[in-house]
């Protein structure tokens, strides 16, 4: 499994990544986390508002950091 966190480096984007990593650690999941911060790549993925999180290229949330439970739901 691969989880992409799209973000330009703002506070909320860092929060999104922290939450994703925590959810992985708490569930013992070994999915790879990729941080996408290149503007071109972000826009090519169709993301207009950062942060956004995609699991295996399926966009899960756009424009806000997910909650811990949400992430656990996606990876469980």
């Amino acid at each position, binding site marked *: 499994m691969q989880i992409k966190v799209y973000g330009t480096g703002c506070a909320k984007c860092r929060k999104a990544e922290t939450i994703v990593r925590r959810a992985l650690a708490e569930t013992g999941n070994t999915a790879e986390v990729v941080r996408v911060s290149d503007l071109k790549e972000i826009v090519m993925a169709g*993301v207009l508002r950062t942060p956004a999180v995609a699991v295996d290229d399926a966009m899960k949330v756009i424009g806000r950091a997910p909650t811990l439970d949400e992430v656990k739901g996606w990876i469980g």
Partner: protein
Amino acid sequence: MPAAAEHQQSTTPAPRRARAWPTVRTVILLLLGLAGWLYLYLHLARFADWYTYDVLGYQRAVEKAQSIKIIEGCACLNAAIPDAQAMAAQRGGQAAAFLLYQLPHTFMLLFLVVFLMGIVRSWFSAERTRRLLAGRHPLTARILAAGLGVVTPFCSCSAAPLFIGFVAAGVPLGATFTFLVAAPLVDKIALVLLFDTFKGTPLQWPIVLLYLGTGLAIALCTGWLVDRLRLQRYVEAWVLAMSDGAEAEVRERLSFNDRVRLGFVAVQEIFGRVWLFVLIGVAVGAVLHAVVPQAWLLGAFGAERWWSVPLAVLVGVPMYANPAGLIPVVQALFAKGVPVGTLLALMMAVVGLSLPECIILRKVLQTRLILIFVGSVATGILIVGYVFNLVLSR
């Protein structure tokens, strides 16, 4: 938060009545919550007054009627008190009453506005706005963009991806700028708090409507200017060369309970970030109220000083503050006699133009276009300031 739990239940298939029940329950809970909010809100002044003078034991300054007036931030009646010590104690009482009233009052209003906006915004998204604007006639697109800018959720940290995404999808450049100006400039929190600040003065409605109207006008003019002067050439080449990327949208089918939950998420987000701004704002407001001499302030920001408006803009642009923190300062300045146009110019400059946003936009725009963008908005704010000062003299 009962809404989150409801959401889990509603995903399992259930008979119609069982599915409607969570919504009904949430509506009932919301109405009860609103009633409670209203009760507290309406009795806050009396409670603060009672706590200050009867529990903390401060001496009343004059009569009760007047001490309530002080709470509303528009009276300066300490001139008639001769005894210095008594005066100091009474000032302490006034300050305590002011704080005990002002802080909860601001936080309560903020809570309601942010919660309701969170729900309203769940119907709008930047992706949907982009679809509505793409391929339209520039003028139609600009008008739509101004309106959508007010309701679409926007954070200045996403300004760059949003800009590229809009342009790549064929949204006219002018409309993209209109959106980027309107979204932060017409601030909903500021609108409601302004309405509240000027409660009971004849300025209440004019100030709110003029703020809304002129904010939209500045956004429209900036967009018009960009289209008119064909400023595409100052957009970085790689942005224009980008073809439309994928269209990602999380197609969630939100139930009413989900939207309520999003309202609470918005409240959490704002309160985690904003409480400090509010505290600082109230503290600065209190200091202005009690310490800074009126003559000194009016020397810089008074009505007859022509430079007061540009000065307000210059002070406001580099400042980054949430409107919720700014309002107590505006309130204190207003009580000291600073004219309304100058105050609005200050507010608009703080919320509408931000340095971080410009730095982010530098990735996609050449410096010249950023300067035109900032210059156009700043000029608009200056005009608003001068016009308000002329029209709304007290």
